[in-house]
């Protein structure tokens, strides 16, 4: 006998198996360690759903109430855990409903794999029922995408999808699978992707750039750090804290950076940007060295670029080379993974404390406290403020909760006033500003971190954009805590109308339904608070309830968020009233 062939056959039977493309999809998910995915079935993805049914003891499919909700849930899952979130949908409208979540994940660097069914390959291009060019549509908002028309392409496409979604600067990917590929049988074998030759996820750290950065930092009299999500995406919290503490640098965060070091840390000087804190915004234009870490100088952070930190030398620690000099010219760019770069920087830093420089931040904080914070947290007027709700939540959760906010005034208030003791606790739509993100994202976050208190905070507007996900909460019994700060307005837009459109409140006033009754319709315990005296007990009731809970707080109708940098103004022109 020919031993060679026998050997070969023996290997084959060991490593491959004849299965359908649809089973392969599920097997790939299992190989990648996926435990939960969010989606919605339909014709072109039914074979995969049939396999999800068979594998339901190994992988949990969560039926969302809208595909957008599925993507945000997958995002919430990814944001709190660092794992890849997975969303699945049918072709046509199912696929297009994913787009908002994909765009959100792209701009906020969230690892997500989306799987869409597609019409059979012989129908492609024929305007078949529920055919849509989702690969074409999603191209500008995905890190990578592809269409699979043969079962044998599935394992490689899936392996690449997961690898690309989570490596380097993370992002969303989409794999579109034709229905015939799902039915087709082939010899399945899975190999994890270890690299793609055209793709270099983490640039090699250049020690000379680290040394140049250290030199500037050591010589600085008034250094300031602005950090972003890159710190937590790179799991560099410990290295970051060590750098901040050793060099004694006042450090401010972008909203996606929040929590990488706790809110209460003495060197944490607050949030930068349009509604950020007064001191870090003003002193951005006073510091001598600005150290940007894992952030991308978004326009909501920088205000007018022509007057942004012009006096400072700029150091940019960044994983994505395309971000260097994109908005702000840097003097030293340190390309690489934040963890590695900061670890290399640490031994080169001199110990410093910069007491006079710190005093400047304290002085400006005192001004902000007098003009803004005091009235937000300890109002003397009758109406409840959003900030006092956050204050109560801080007290009762001891700052350990993950806060999942929607978009608008309440989001800025949540970012400004929530205490974040832990990293990955501020889950919010930063770059896209997607109303409707909060509630479904909270579902994903809670499912990924069941031991954590997850509190969704929405406005009455955004809440109604994905309110149908109460059905998901109900069916899955996800114990999220839902807070709606109801001002009966699309508050943030109303604020702009007040400040820049002479109070012409065009289509921003809301006639709202009975939110408590709606929650109760889904068997979710619910309560509405209209008076300050009721707030403490209501928050306690919410936190102490085991299952999901809905709390509506009626807040003052025309409250504004300050400080504020008007669009196009300089960071140092931040308004306190």
């Amino acid at each position, binding site marked *: 006998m020919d031993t060679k062939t026998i050997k070969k056959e023996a290997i084959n039977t060991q490593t491959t198996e004849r299965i359908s493309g649809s089973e392969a999809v599920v097997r790939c998910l299992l190989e990648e360690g996926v435990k939960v995915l969010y989606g919605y079935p339909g014709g072109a993805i039914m074979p995969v759903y049939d396999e999800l049914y068979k594998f339901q003891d190994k992988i949990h499919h969560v039926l969302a109430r809208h595909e957008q909700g599925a993507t945000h849930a997958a995002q919430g899952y990814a944001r709190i855990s660092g794992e890849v979130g997975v969303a699945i949908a049918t072709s046509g409208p199912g696929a297009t409903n994913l787009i908002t979540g994909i765009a959100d994940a792209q701009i906020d660097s969230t690892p997500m794999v989306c799987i869409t069914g597609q019409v059979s390959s012989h129908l492609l291009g024929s305007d078949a029922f529920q055919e849509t060019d989702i*690969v*074409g549509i999603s*191209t*500008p908002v995905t*890190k*990578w*995408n*592809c269409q699979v028309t043969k079962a044998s392409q599935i394992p490689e496409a899936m392996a690449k999808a997961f690898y*690309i979604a989570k490596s380097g600067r993370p992002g969303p990917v989409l794999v579109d699978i034709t229905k015939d590929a799902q039915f087709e049988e082939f010899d399945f074998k899975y190999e994890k992707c270890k*690299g*793609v*030759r*055209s*793709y270099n996820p983490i640039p090699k750290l250049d020690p000379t750039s680290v040394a140049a950065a250290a030199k500037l930092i050591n010589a600085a009299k008034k250094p300031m750090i602005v950090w972003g999500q890159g710190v937590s995406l790179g799991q560099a919290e410990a290295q970051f804290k060590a750098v901040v503490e050793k060099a004694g640098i006042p450090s401010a965060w972008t909203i996606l950076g929040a929590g990488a070091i706790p809110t209460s840390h003495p060197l944490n000087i607050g949030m930068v940007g349009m509604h950020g804190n007064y001191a870090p915004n003003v002193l951005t234009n006073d510091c001598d060295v600005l150290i940007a870490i894992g952030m991308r100088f978004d326009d909501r952070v920088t205000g007018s670029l022509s007057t942004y930190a012009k006096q400072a030398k700029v150091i940019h620690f960044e994983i*994505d*080379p*395309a*971000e*260097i*000099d*994109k908005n702000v010219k840097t003097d030293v760019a340190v390309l690489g993974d934040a963890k590695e770069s900061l670890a290399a920087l640490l031994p080169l830093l001199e110990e410093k404390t910069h007491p006079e420089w710190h005093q400047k931040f304290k002085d400006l904080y005192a001004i902000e406290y007098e003009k803004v914070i005091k009235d937000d947290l300890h109002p003397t007027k009758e109406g409840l403020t959003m900030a006092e709700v956050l204050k109560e939540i801080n007290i009762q959760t001891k700052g350990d909760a993950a806060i999942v906010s929607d978009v608008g005034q309440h989001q800025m208030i949540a970012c400004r006033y929530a205490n974040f003791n832990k990293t990955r606790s501020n889950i919010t739509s930063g770059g896209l500003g997607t109303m409707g993100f909060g509630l479904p994202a909270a579902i994903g976050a809670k499912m990924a971190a069941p031991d954590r208190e997850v509190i969704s905070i929405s406005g009455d507007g955004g809440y109604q954009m994905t309110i149908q996900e109460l059905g998901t909460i109900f069916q899955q019994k996800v114990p999220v805590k839902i807070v709606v700060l109801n001002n009966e307005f699309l508050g943030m837009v109303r604020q702009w109308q007040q400040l820049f459109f002479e109070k012409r409140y065009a289509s921003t006033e809301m006639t709202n339904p009975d939110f408590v009754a709606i929650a109760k319709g889904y068997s979710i315990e619910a309560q509405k608070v209209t008076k300050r005296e009721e707030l403490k007990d209501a928050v306690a009731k919410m936190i102490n309830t085991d299952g999901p809970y809905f709390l509506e707080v009626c807040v003052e109708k025309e409250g504004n968020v300050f400080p504020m940098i008007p669009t196009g103004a300089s960071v140092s022109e931040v308004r306190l009233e």
Partner: protein
Amino acid sequence: MSTEKQLFTVSIYTENNIGLLNRISAIFQRRHINIESLNTSPSEIDGVSRFTIVVNMSEDNIKKIIGQIEKQVEVIKAYYHTEDDIIYQESCIFKMRSGLLFDERQIQNIIKESNARIVTVNRDFFVIEKSGRKEEIELLHRELSVFGIMQFTRSGRIAVTKDEMKISTMLQAFQH
């Protein structure tokens, strides 16, 4: 000045992927950058495609564009070149009425002097082909247009650089 607009030729080495043209053109389109010409072809490396794109923009901005292009997963490497960095060619074809060859003697001279070539002649029309630099092609077009051109088309620029681009070494390094 790096903020002054000038012509840049962009060379992009990529994996062979149908979706990539979409991704790359979207990068320009989003920023309202007009593509002067675009050519895709195989490259000197087996299985690697090469895009050659000509744009008119500032050096500051082309640098950012190159960053965005390289960020695409299936792009191996992108470069930008000034006019002095490269040797380039464009080509064009003219379809003209055959009678002109007899009626307008100077056409023969124009073809000869411009280093153009007659590809085919039949009873009704003849076809002229010319490869060269942009200005040469523009000149030929001007000279021939007085006689009436039945059809004209012109290709995108293709270019090689005077300096090495080290793309093969890069690819080898990746394969360990």
